[in-house]
């Protein structure tokens, strides 16, 4: 036994005597340490700890030099993912027929797979032959500038210089005089042959390729080159659309050969043939503008996105658009059967846009627009016309559900086909020509100036209401006791001095109608009657009634571009007149305002809303959107069906409503001669008012006045109200033919041909009723 003693350092040492005596191997300190260090468990622990420390330090380095690391990766940015577009929501009419829908298209993207230029070019060449074989449309921006068969530029010099010096593309210098431009210098190439050589050089296309082969490569390379920065940083670039599934399968199966090719989906907007009758409601799509993109970039819009430019497409853009997803992509694999690292369901799934259900009835749209077109064409072609007739070229109508404010029909003529915008973007020549007309460019300036096919006249066009305003005058006079239901007599003498001006009755300029009650005055649309009662009521009262009935106020329709219009009153006169003297309100102004002339300018939707208000004593909010429904069925938005009760005295209102009925039914009525409509009224009682509004151009341009017509039906239990205008359509009464068409479609009553069908069609300018 070794005796342990403590040495001067406080360490145990072994007694020398005993060790030498016992000949036992006593472990030295070194041995103990060695035994400990040599312990396999300890060694293992050390090995593990080395890894642990390495991990700890590596992590810390990343975390505390984090900012610099983040900056460099952000700059280099290799986001190996691409944007997956979301299908745009559909737009349905009230029957559930899709007016606008989306079609899935297969697209091919190409990502940077890090190939050498030679291999890449060889691959693109093969790809181009494959595309030809499968009739695939390849996308190349080069085609609009350049063609190599034969060598030529397709744009003029200025555009070429702009193109070739462009900051994101070739970045060439503008040619200076005296410099001979060669293919390998950095001046703008205006010689097509030199430009071709330049591209060959730029894309490192081997000299062994023939011109045709090189051009095939160049076309695809150019497309990639247009987004070179993104491509180099891992964003795939679209090179072909409408690719057949067979070709996609070939490309994916041989992905080791066609490296970097990604099959993706895109969506194409499709408008049904019915959509062109609702073009102003549905709207159209166009490329996103720079400003709009800057605004919407944060919520996932990209420069290639299409956005709504008008109508529901614009109004409901955020609902319809959906949210694009992100998909990590798989490229390159050395063997055909494996190599997928990312599953299909990885990434962020796109959220499809919500569907919009409209209150619009396509049958009304079609009937209304076709009737309007027919009317205008007839007016334009009518042989015995004074020169102005030929100027009738435009119109608009609104059919309103009087109970809810749902817009059942809204048309504006001339109209457009929203499909043209899509087709034009895809390079359809005919559609392109149409677009020029719509936008008024390249020689179409003059005709588009008058036609304004993109302009929604129903909500943005401002028209003097003319005689259709007379219900306001009547209601204001009744409210203020100027006339009463029991005593609404007023005498029409012609000429008559009202408010210091001499007015003549239009239908009986010499003598006038004599004493009239309100009903008769409405039926004949006697101006003198309304000028007199309007003058006695006063402009402020007329204005208040007009405001109550929603005239000159935004109706709140859920479409972009609504105009509020102008109510003729003291304030607007001041605002509109420059001359101090002119700004003073004159009594005669009241008389003119009372018959819907002077400064009054309203939209057709306001007139429809006002007619509905006269019919029901309620003010509705006109709307075209019934519901917006998300993909999962949740309702994101519903049309405003609330009504505002107006509280107009029922007896007063009844009198005005009867007056509107007399317009149709009384022998004096302005449309009594219009037999077909009278016959219709025998089945469905109709209340209406015509209006012929002077535009002020009659004398100067020899143009006719605007023809307006408002009505509601059935008169005893109103369901719909209609307001329409035909610009320069002259008589409001003659434009009733369009309203009749709408009424017959709505109430499903075909025209009875047996009873005087010849007579039923009013002939323009044939009969002179007063005031319109």
């Amino acid at each position, binding site marked *: 036994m070794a005796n342990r003693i403590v040495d001067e350092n406080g360490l145990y040492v072994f007694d020398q005597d005993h060790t030498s005596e016992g000949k036992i191997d006593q472990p030295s300190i070194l041995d103990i340490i060695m035994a400990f260090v040599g*312990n*396999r*468990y*300890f*060694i*293992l*622990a050390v090995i*593990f*700890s080395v*890894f*642990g420390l*390495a*991990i*700890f330090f*590596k*992590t*810390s380095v*990343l*975390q*505390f*030099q*984090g*900012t610099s*690391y*983040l900056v460099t*990766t952000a700059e280099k940015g*290799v986001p*190996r*993912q691409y944007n997956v577009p979301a299908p745009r929501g559909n737009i349905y009419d009230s029957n559930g027929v899709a007016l606008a829908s989306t079609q899935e298209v297969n697209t091919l993207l190409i990502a940077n*797979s*890090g190939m050498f230029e030679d291999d890449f070019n060889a691959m693109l060449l093969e790809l181009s032959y494959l595309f030809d074989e499968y009739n695939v449309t390849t996308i190349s921006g080069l085609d609009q500038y350049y063609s190599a068969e034969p060598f030529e530029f397709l744009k003029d010099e200025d555009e070429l210089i702009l193109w070739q010096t462009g900051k994101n593309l070739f970045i060439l210098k503008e040619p200076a005089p005296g410099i001979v431009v060669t293919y390998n210098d950095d001046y703008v190439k205006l010689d097509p042959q030199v430009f071709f050589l330049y591209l060959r050089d730029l894309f490192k296309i081997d000299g062994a390729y023939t011109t045709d082969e090189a051009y095939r490569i160049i076309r695809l390379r150019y497309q990639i080159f247009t987004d070179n920065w993104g491509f180099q940083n891992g964003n795939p670039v679209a090179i072909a659309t409408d690719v057949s599934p067979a070709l996609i399968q070939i490309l994916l199966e041989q992905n080791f050969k066609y490296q970097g090719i990604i099959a993706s989906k895109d969506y194409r907007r499709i408008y049904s043939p019915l959509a062109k009758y609702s073009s102003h409601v549905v709207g159209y799509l166009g490329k996103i503008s720079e400003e709009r993109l800057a605004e919407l970039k944060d919520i996932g819009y990209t420069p290639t996105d299409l956005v709504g430019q008008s109508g529901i497409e614009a109004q409901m853009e955020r609902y319809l658009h959906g949210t694009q997803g*992100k998909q*990590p992509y*798989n*490229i*390159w*694999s*050395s*063997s055909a059967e*494996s*190599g*997928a*690292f*990312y*599953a*299909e*369901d*990885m990434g*962020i799934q796109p959220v499809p846009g919500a569907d919009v259900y409209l209150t619009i009835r396509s049958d009304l749209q079609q009937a209304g627009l076709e009737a309007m077109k027919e009317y205008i064409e007839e007016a334009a072609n009518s042989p015995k016309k004074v020169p102005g007739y030929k100027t009738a070229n435009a119109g608009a109508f609104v059919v309103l559900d009087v109970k809810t404010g749902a817009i059942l029909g809204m048309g504006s003529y001339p109209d457009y086909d929203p499909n043209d915008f899509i087709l034009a973007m895809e390079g359809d020549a005919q559609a392109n020509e149409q677009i020029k007309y719509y936008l008024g460019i390249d020689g179409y300036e003059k005709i588009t100036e008058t036609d304004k096919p993109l302009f929604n006249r129903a909500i943005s066009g401002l028209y003097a209401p003319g005689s259709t305003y007379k219900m306001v005058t009547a209601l204001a006079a009744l409210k203020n006791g100027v006339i009463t239901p029991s005593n609404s007599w007023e005498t029409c003498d012609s000429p008559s001095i009202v408010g210091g001006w001499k007015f003549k009755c239009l239908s009986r300029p010499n003598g006038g109608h004599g004493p009239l009650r309100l009903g008769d005055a409405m039926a004949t649309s006697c101006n003198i009657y309304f000028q007199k009662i309007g003058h006695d009521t006063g402009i402020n009262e007329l204005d208040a009634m007009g405001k109550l009935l929603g005239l000159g106020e935004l109706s709140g329709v859920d479409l972009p571009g609504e105009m509020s219009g102008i109510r003729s009153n003291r304030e607007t006169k001041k605002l509109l007149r420059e001359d101090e003297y002119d700004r003073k309100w004159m009594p005669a102004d009241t008389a003119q305002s009372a018959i819907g002339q002077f400064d009054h300018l309203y939209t057709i939707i306001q007139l429809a809303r006002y007619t509905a208000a006269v019919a029901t004593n309620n003010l509705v909010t006109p709307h075209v959107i019934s519901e917006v429904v998300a993909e999962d069925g949740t309702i994101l938005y519903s049309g405003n069906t609330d009504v505002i009760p107006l509280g107009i005295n029922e007896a007063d209102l009844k009198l005005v409503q009867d007056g509107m009925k007399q317009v149709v039914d009384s022998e004096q009525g302005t449309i009594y001669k219009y037999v077909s409509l009278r016959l219709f009224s025998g089945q469905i009682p109709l209340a209406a008012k015509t209006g012929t509004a002077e535009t002020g151009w009659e004398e100067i341009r020899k143009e006719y006045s605007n023809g307006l017509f408002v009505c509601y039906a059935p008169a005893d239990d109103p369901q719909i109200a209609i307001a329409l205008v035909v610009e320069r359509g002259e008589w409001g009464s003659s434009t009733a033919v369009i309203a009749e068409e709408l009424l017959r479609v709505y109430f499903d009553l075909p025209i009875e041909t047996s009873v005087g069908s010849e007579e039923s069609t009013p002939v323009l300018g044939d009969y002179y009723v007063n005031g319109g």
Partner: protein
Amino acid sequence: MATGKSGIVQLRNNYFRSVDYFLLIPVVVLTIIGIFVLDRVLSEGYEGYPQVLYRQAIAGVLGMSIALLICLIHTHFLKIIGWIIYAVSTMLLILVLIDNFSMVNTWGADSWLNLPVVGTFQPSELSKIGLIVVTAYLLEAIKDKEIPYFRGIALIIAVYAVPVGLIMKQPDFGTTMVIMFSLACMIFVWGIKYRYLFLSISGAVVVLLPLMWQFFLEPYQKTRILSFVFAGSDPHGEYNLIQSKTAIASGGLIGNRTGSVVWVPVKQSDFIYSAVSEHMGFIGTTAVVFLAFFFLARCLYVGAKTRQKSYSYVLVGLCGSFAFHFIENIGMGVGLLPITGIPLPFISLGGTSLMVSYISFGIILNIAMERKSPQT
């Protein structure tokens, strides 16, 4: 080692006093960190959140209970249990081959079973435990000269051949590596002479690697390794790594508080470490690394102090398996090691991984308690 009682379950005296808290506490804390981080990751838009998280939490509680229940088993039943696990898991590995039971896995390998009641399950994970326990007893037998040396070696090779062959066939490169690594740890502790160790390592490098490269590795596995050795040869692997590193870097000291998250593929499992850093920063990663390696060190310490050789080998084997998981998972996340799809124990999302980790942990805890409780 006879206890005198015939039951498989023993009621230890002072159960809670004999629990090795140096082992228990790190595991509990790691699990809690795991749930916390997973909650953040899964709420980024993972399908099935929060049900998936609840399932993970329940699996955690269940796993911990199983681990504590395993402590009640007489340690000397470990041998027979090991063989049972080995046999069952090998059978399950064969079941994977049968189409009706297997689920084609989207991540690359077909290694999942779809069993009635149990649900989806990865038998290769379980196989690992069986192999370790069985090997430990074989190694002890060789050491005690109960089995002749070469026959023992042959037996070990035979035991490994079937399950490892089946796992390689799936192909589950990660689990194969784990198994080989834990075997290496056990053999090392068992006392292989350094010259043999050197020989076998160099032999493996010279002979085995090219063989594996040629015959066993799938192309995507090759590209992963290539991309590690020669940066730039595999854009995908590199992309994962860049994203993972970016996420780690974004964590800083206390985690990324900017609200924007870095998109890392398989963040909930293979790249969970990047999420730990992203959401808990340096503090979180330090905690995870410290706890993990403290746990490993404690395992080895207990192993070194355990007299029964077989128990000690089991401990080292399981410790080696955990070590490989920790090192490889974190190491690939920070770019130190090539990318392999293996989870971070106690933290990554995945029921099988969590349960198997807890069973392994239960065995470790059992042996540690056996050491503490009075010898009978």
